[in-house]
């Protein structure tokens, strides 16, 4: 247990996920994993619960960093999960672990997504470099957004890779609003926008992007917010809208309720942590 403050909804429940041997699982009964552990650390520090009380969890997460600076998916498969290096860099920054942070950032900027020639059937620029989930594959919205976020949070938002990463995200925006996991459309048909990737991309683009470039996505989230039902979607929608100063009071209410379900069956600790971060105002992930 971290013993972190219970002021924010969901924080006590999130703390109860922490395993005695270290780490936080995605779901109760599962093994410890990097992502829920890293997001829990961000949630705890967002709630002022860092310091001695998060020491064990931070130690567990720090041990996931490999010699090349990358961070693995869990403590078993060290060569898997390079995409987790970005959220880890944010954690290292927020917890004042400069050396681990710099190693993570150095690794991040060394990793590039694959590019290919442009295809007239796909409305996107395949030559823009982003970040992949897995080495030697294409770039996708979520790992690219997290890498840009990490560079921004760590004071490197002007790095050429961050600049190109933002360009990547804007290129992948669906013309009528929102983001899919990767492509805005194929064969002149727009793909479906997702709540989580849309919220994340909006959060990341705040501060260095003119609002006119993301207005369709803001309007997409605003006009469709009653349709968002999942904890994950609610959390990222709140973060995305509030980053741009858009009101999200009703979404917050529903997020608060979603963080306290009748049963923990199917409750994802990473999503719970994202919810805590959203309700905290999102400063811990602000650039």
């Amino acid at each position: 247990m971290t013993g972190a403050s219970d002021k924010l909804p969901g924080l006590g429940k999130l703390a109860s996920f922490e395993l005695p041997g270290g780490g936080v699982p995605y779901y109760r009964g599962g093994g410890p994993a990097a992502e829920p552990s890293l997001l829990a650390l961000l949630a705890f520090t967002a709630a002022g619960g860092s310091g001695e009380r998060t020491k064990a969890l931070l130690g567990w997460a720090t041990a996931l960093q490999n010699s090349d600076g990358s961070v693995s998916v869990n403590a078993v498969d060290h060569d898997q999960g390079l995409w987790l290096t970005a959220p880890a860099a944010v954690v290292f920054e927020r917890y004042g672990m400069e050396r681990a942070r710099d190693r993570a950032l150095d690794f991040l900027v060394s990793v590039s997504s694959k590019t290919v020639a442009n295809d007239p059937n796909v409305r996107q620029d395949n030559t823009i470099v982003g970040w992949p989930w897995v080495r030697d594959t294409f770039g996708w919205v979520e790992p690219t957004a997290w890498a840009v976020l990490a560079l921004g949070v760590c004071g490197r938002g002007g790095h050429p890779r961050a600049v190109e990463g933002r360009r990547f995200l804007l290129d992948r925006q669906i013309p009528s609003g929102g983001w899919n996991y990767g492509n805005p459309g194929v064969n002149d048909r727009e793909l479906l926008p997702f709540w989580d990737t849309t919220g994340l991309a909006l959060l990341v683009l705040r501060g260095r992007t003119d609002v006119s470039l993301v207005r369709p996505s803001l309007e997409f989230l605003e006009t469709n917010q009653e349709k968002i039902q999942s904890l994950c979607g609610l959390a990222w929608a709140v973060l995305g809208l509030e980053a741009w100063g858009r009101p999200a009071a009703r979404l917050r209410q529903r997020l608060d309720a979603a963080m306290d379900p009748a049963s923990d069956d199917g409750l994802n600790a990473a999503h719970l942590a994202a919810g805590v971060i959203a309700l905290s105002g999102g400063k811990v992930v602000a650039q």
Partner: protein
Amino acid sequence: MKRRDFLTGAAVMAGAAVAGKPAGGTAQLSASPCPVTLLPMPDYGRDMEKEIAQVMTSDGLVLKGKRVLLKPNFVEAHPERPINTNPSVIASVAHACLRLGASEVAVGEASGHRRDPWFSVLNPALRTVLDKRVKCLDLNHGEAVATPNRGGSTGLSKFYLARAVAEADVLICLPKMKTHHWMGVTLCLKNLFGTLPGIYYGWPKNLLHFRGIENSVLDLARTVRVHYNVIDGVVGMEGDGPIMGRAKPVGALVLSPFSLAADATAARLMGFEPRRVLYLVMAGRFLPGLRPEDVALRGEDPRRFATRFDCLDAFKPMRGGPFF
């Protein structure tokens, strides 16, 4: 061989299919030709538990005391498109497994499309129709078991299978009958992509695309032990599948212990010649059931269901028939 080369250069590779041992499961090893049963299910309002249990039993599937994992295709909660294996079909199969004495029944999916599991097997539309004893597992977010790749097509030395997949006593594959914009058709074999956790492979599982989708299907077909298959062909998807297509009512469930036999039969019902679908032909080199003579059709007359799915132009050369 590239798909286009295959389509232009090979008319029929009838000799490709040779009898061989499927990926696993006692039921799969027992029969040749491969039994494939067609069950009529005109709409999703009908509970098929009893009929499915009877067919499973007649196919030699023993579930008493076994931990069973159902692997549907459940990747996007869209109110208007028949993208997923319908919850009523999943429920009928899950409840049939309970009826046959399974000690545990779970429904698991690692969607390569949506990361948010609310849009997959944690969706209320599924959870509310399942017996409370049936668990729903988000296979994207959790532990994996490094499993040697028993195929050699992708060059990958191992696959990280979701732990629930690796540890199930019985794996039942429950795909949707759909066209696929890269593969032509997506059925049982392609459905195995959803045994690989996204936290290891990403969204989509782009590593498998780089290694070749057909290659990946073939390697997974050799590596993942599938014991039984039920294809939801009640309402399939035609056109720009597997996400953006249109509903195509067929009114049938396709059941078989043999993945390729189920796929080949379903493809014929869709109006596709399986011997023109590259990955099915390649699978026919190590799995039985590609050719009509490899299949023992049971249940309803296939002519009742046989139809012609619309598809993208690139895949129209794969079509054929009439087959029945």
